[in-house]
């Protein structure tokens, strides 16, 4: 009796939470298929029954701005490029740094390994607003303001702590005896890293990649302040659309289009993560 009550409560709680999470999404999804009539009739959710679906909202994404389309394709590509580049660089640098922190003892003044790791992650504690002006001046003085190189550099700095933090944790789960066995087996440090340690940290790489993509794809503050005309990224573009007199359906379609990559990434990576390889690996 008490058990069924507990299960019931659990479902109620989960249900409420799902509504909270899914409702805005659903709202955007239905709106993106509506036209003038559909939107002004209030909240309707069931296509064909409650409103007549149209593809007009989505079509505007692909139409030339001169013919009533919206300017989203270029920022989209720019965001893909910046996200891919900064994620890749952050993964390479951060993974190597994390391996070093996990396997060797360092001393920087009074700081030891754990302090250095903490120093890395502490970079994320600062709100971006604090960094925006220094970054602005830095990029301006090096003529990197509003360039891909500049923004990728800033993004990489932003992502590095995450990668280091995640990967140090994963590397620490790989017993040091594996490195030692590899070295005795004839590996140099690089071979040890790439052939023995890294392959056992696949899930860590997946987590780090996922976080990097999420953070850099949806980053708004630096995109807004450090790039304006030459480089236009997606998040500020969508927000600016919002303030223009843009029809709701186009807006909804562009918003959904901008989260689409994250959904795809999450879907694939989640499947990989849930295979539970990690737990079995080091028995």
């Amino acid at each position, binding site marked *: 009796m008490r058990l069924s009550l507990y299960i019931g409560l659990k479902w109620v709680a989960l249900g409420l939470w799902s509504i909270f999470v899914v409702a805005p999404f659903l709202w955007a999804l239905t709106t993106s298929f509506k036209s003038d009539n559909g939107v002004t009739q209030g909240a309707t959710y069931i296509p064909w029954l409650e409103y007549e679906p149209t593809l007009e909202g989505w079509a505007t994404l692909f139409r030339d701005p001169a013919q009533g389309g919206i300017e989203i394709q270029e920022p989209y590509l720019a965001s893909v490029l910046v996200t891919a580049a900064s994620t890749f660089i952050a993964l390479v640098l951060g993974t190597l740094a994390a391996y070093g922190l996990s396997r060797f003892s360092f001393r920087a003044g009074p700081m030891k390994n754990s302090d250095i790791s903490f120093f890395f992650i502490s970079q994320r504690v600062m709100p971006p607003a604090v960094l925006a002006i220094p970054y602005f001046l830095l990029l301006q003085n090096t003529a990197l303001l509003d360039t891909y190189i500049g923004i990728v550099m800033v993004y990489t700095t932003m992502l590095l702590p995450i990668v280091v933090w995640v990967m140090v944790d994963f590397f620490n789960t790989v*017993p040091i*005896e*594996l490195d*030692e*066995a*590899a*070295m*005795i*087996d*004839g*590996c*140099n440090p690089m*071979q040890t890293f790439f*052939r*023995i340690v890294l*392959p*056992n940290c696949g899930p860590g790489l997946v987590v780090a990649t996922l976080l990097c993509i999420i953070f850099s794809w949806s980053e708004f503050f630096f995109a807004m302040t450090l790039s304006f005309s030459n480089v236009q990224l997606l998040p500020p573009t969508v927000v600016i659309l919002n303030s223009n007199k843009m029809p709701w359906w186009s807006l909804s379609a562009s918003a959904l289009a901008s989260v689409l990559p994250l959904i795809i990434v999450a879907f694939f990576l989640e499947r990989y993560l849930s295979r539970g390889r990690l737990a*079995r*690996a*080091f*028995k």
Partner: protein
Amino acid sequence: MAQITIDKIEKRFSVTKALSAIDLTVRDREFVVLVGPSGSGKSTLLRIIAGLDFPSEGTIAIDGKPMMGVAPKDRDVAMVFQSHALYPHMTVYDNLAFNLRIRGIAREQIDVKVKEVAARLEIIELLKRRPHQMSGGQRQRVAIGRALVRDPRVFLFDEPLSNLDAELRARLRTEIKRLHRELQRTSVYVTHDQIEAMTLADRVVVLRGGRIEQVGAPDELYARPANIFVGGFIGSPAMNLVPANGADGSLALDGGERFAASTPVRGPLIAGMRPEDLMVVPVGTAGSFHARVNLTEPTGADTLLLCSIGAKLDLCVRVSRHMRAVEGDVLTLRPRDGSLHLFDIESGQRLN
């Protein structure tokens, strides 16, 4: 050919001194076992030989070639770890083949070698498995196989059997011994287990607190321990170490018993008597003393009698299971001729 020369090695970890003044030569084809209590520096010494750690002082050489600055991969040593340290993401086959691949051996040769070793260790049917799909004993077998495929100059073992149950440990112990007989490779083997030490070793090195207490063949260590520590450490059940007083031609044990024995010194000393060296003899036999049985522990072939002399002293006596003794019996005991070990009470060094 592989002779390991360890010369005045010292190892410090910030404050702790893990090894001091280690001098040891492991001869070609010799099987040397390092034993000692936990923290005595066995693994550290092994890791220094492997090149995974570096001595703070002193040098080590293999075949006369100094190993200073030589990476583990260039030392031509193979090591079996206590935790097996198999690569979890590889099959058994790949685990065995990995070190040959890294060294650029041709694929066909690798295949031949891996199959040969797998056959020898009876792990052919496991070749396609991953480490997590095997039992502890199978994993340890593969770990040994990984060392074997290399055909290295030196084998290093760090407690390879300590995670296994007793029966499996005994089986693999025999197998390691057989492998050494066949392959005749210089080996250094670390263990806690005295039976492993006694059965495998050509020579045993007893370590305590980072120092070598004694080096010798197993029976030598057993028959003539150089000091109290080795006497108490080697042998199970442990040697009885009894405070005593030496006088002309006799020994007075703490607890009031006195018996005739030849002793090189007068005054306080420690008398060591192995449980199996104490014989039960008729009352009145020359050189005998009395002890009261407190507890009997049958172990199968033998029975252990835990006795006391006077109020406090505990004495373990090993007798055949045919001897019937019950609690409260008073036994007349005499140490077997030449089996008495006498140690200095201050330094702990052997006196006779």
